[in-house]
C-alpha cells in the first residue's frame, strides 16, 4: 500500500468557539496534484496552513511520510520544511521590496546559489509568468493579477518538492488563468512536485488534478479522482459540482 506523503488524522481546529475543521482525514500522495474544493469560508486555507505549520491542530495529527513533524529530528524538520513552498491567497508580497527582491528573497536567504545563478533563476520565472519588466516596481504599483503572478513566481523559484497553492488563479483573466493552470501542470510533469491547490475554478481545475477533496462544514466529504467525483451521485457532491458548473 502506498504511504501518503501527507496525512491528516482526525484533525480538528476551532477559532473562538467556531469549529472550522472537524475530525478531518485527508491523504495527499507524492507526485500528485490534490485539489481542495469547497464553499468560501469552509476552512480550506486553514487546512493548508496546518500543513506548513502556520497553524497547529487542536486535536489530531498531521503525518509526513507516516511520521508526525515532532517525531522527526530537528534537522529533519528543518529540511522537511525547506521542501515546501506556499502561495498565499492575498499574495503576501513584501510591499517595501521590489518585485525582483521579492522573488529572489527565498533564494538569497535559504540557498547557497550565487548572485548570477539567483538572477538567472528569477529572470527565468519572470519570463515564464510574463512579468519581465516589472523588476524594479513595488507590489503596490502592480495590478491584482500581476501580484498573483509575482507570488506564483516566488513560490516556484526555489523548485520545491511540495507546493501549496491558495487560490492561485483568483483575480486573473481567463487567458492567464488557463496559462497558470497549464504552467502548474507542465511543471508538475517536469519536476514531479506534489501540489495541493485550493481552488474555486470548477471544472477547469479538474483537468490538472489527480485527486479532489471536497470540504464541507468542516469535514472532508469526498476524496477521489475527478472521474469519481463526476460519477458521485450523492446530492451534496452533485449539487456542489454541478452548481459550480452551471454558474
Amino acid at each position: 500500500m502506498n504511504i501518503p506523503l501527507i496525512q491528516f488524522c482526525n484533525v480538528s481546529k476551532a477559532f473562538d468557539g467556531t469549529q472550522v475543521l472537524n475530525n478531518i482525514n485527508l491523504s495527499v500522495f507524492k507526485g500528485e496534484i490534490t485539489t481542495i474544493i469547497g464553499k468560501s469560508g469552509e476552512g480550506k486555507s486553514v487546512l493548508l496552513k496546518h500543513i506548513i505549520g502556520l497553524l497547529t491542530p487542536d486535536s489530531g495529527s498531521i503525518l509526513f511520510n507516516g511520521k508526525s513533524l515532532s517525531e522527526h529530528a530537528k534537522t529533519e524538520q528543518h529540511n522537511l520544511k525547506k521542501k515546501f513552498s506556499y502561495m498565499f491567497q492575498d499574495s503576501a508580497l513584501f510591499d517595501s521590496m521590489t518585485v525582483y527582491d521579492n522573488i529572489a528573497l527565498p533564494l538569497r536567504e535559504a540557498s547557497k546559489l550565487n548572485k548570477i545563478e539567483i538572477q538567472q533563476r528569477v529572470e527565468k520565472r519572470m519570463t515564464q509568468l510574463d512579468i519581465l519588466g516589472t523588476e524594479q516596481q513595488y507590489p503596490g504599483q502592480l495590478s491584482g493579477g500581476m501580484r498573483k503572478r509575482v507570488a506564483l513566481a516566488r513560490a516556484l523559484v526555489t523548485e520545491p518538492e511540495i507546493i501549496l497553492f491558495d487560490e492561485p488563479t483568483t483575480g486573473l483573466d481567463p487567458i492567464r488563468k488557463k496559462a497558470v493552470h497549464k504552467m502548474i501542470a507542465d511543471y508538475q510533469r517536469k519536476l514531479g512536485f506534489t501540489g495541493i491547490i485550493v481552488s474555486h475554478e470548477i471544472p477547469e481545475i479538474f483537468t490538472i488534478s489527480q485527486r479532489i477533496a471536497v470540504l464541507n462544514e468542516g469535514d472532508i466529504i469526498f476524496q477521489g479522482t475527478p472521474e469519481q467525483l463526476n460519477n458521485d451521485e450523492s446530492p451534496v457532491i452533485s449539487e456542489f459540482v454541478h452548481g459550480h458548473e452551471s454558474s
Partner: protein
Amino acid sequence: MSRAIFLTSPLAQLGRAVMTLLQRFGKAALFLLHGITHMFSRPWQWRRVLEQLYFIGAKSIVVICVTGLFTGMVLGLQGYYTLSQFGSTGLLGSAVALTLIRELGPVLTAIMIIGRAGSAMTAEIGIMRISEQIDALKTMTIDPIRFLVSPRIIAALISFPLLTAIFDTVGIFGGYLTGSQLLGINPAIYFYRVENSVLMADVIEGFIKSLFFSITVITVCCYHGYYTHTRRNNFGAKGVGFSTTTAVVQASILVLVIDYILTSVLL
C-alpha cells in the same frame, strides 16, 4: 459560599492581572533573547544592519541636533539665573555638561528615537504581520525574528550611544550660546568648567544608559508590532495603530523607569 467568592474575586482579578503581566514580560524577554541569539548567526546580515543604521541613526541626526541644541540653550538660561542667585555663574559649564551627559542626553535621545524610529518600526512590523508577510517568511524557512529584529538590535546598539554623544556635544554648545553669547559668561571659563568637571565615569554612565535604552526601545517597539495580531478586539489597521501607540507609551515610560534604576545603581 457566595460571600467567599465576593471577597476573593478582587484578589483573583489582581492575581490574574499580575500573572498576565509576568507572562508578557517573559514573552518579551524570550523575544529579545531570540533576537540577540540571531545577531551572531550566519550568514551575517550586513545589508539589513546598514539599512537600519541609516534609518535609526543617520536619519535621526537632524532631530537629535535640534533637540540637543534647544535643550542645551534652555539649560544655559535656567542654569544661569539659578546660579546667579548664588554668585556662581562660572559653574554654568559644569551644570550644563553634567546634566546633559549623565541624564538628559541619554534619556531625551532615547525618547526622540522612540518617536521617530520606534513608532515606525512597530507600524512596519505590524503591517507585515496583518498582511501575512511574516507568515510568508516562515514558509520560506526564514526566521522572522532573525530577519526583522536582530539587525535592528545591532543598529540600535551602535546608533544610540553615538546619537547620545551628538546630543551631548550639541547641547553643550547650546549652553555656550545662551550662557556666553547671550548672557556674557566668559567662554574660556564655560569650556574650562566643562572640561574640568566631566569625568570619564560620567561619560561611561551616559553610554551605559543609552545601551540599556536601545535594547528596551527595540524590544518594546518590535514586540508590539510582531504580536499586533494577538490584540483583543483591535484588528487590522486599527490594531496596528493601537500597537504603535502602546509601544511608544510603554517604551517612553520604561526609559524613564530604567533611567531611575540605573542612576540609583551607578551613582
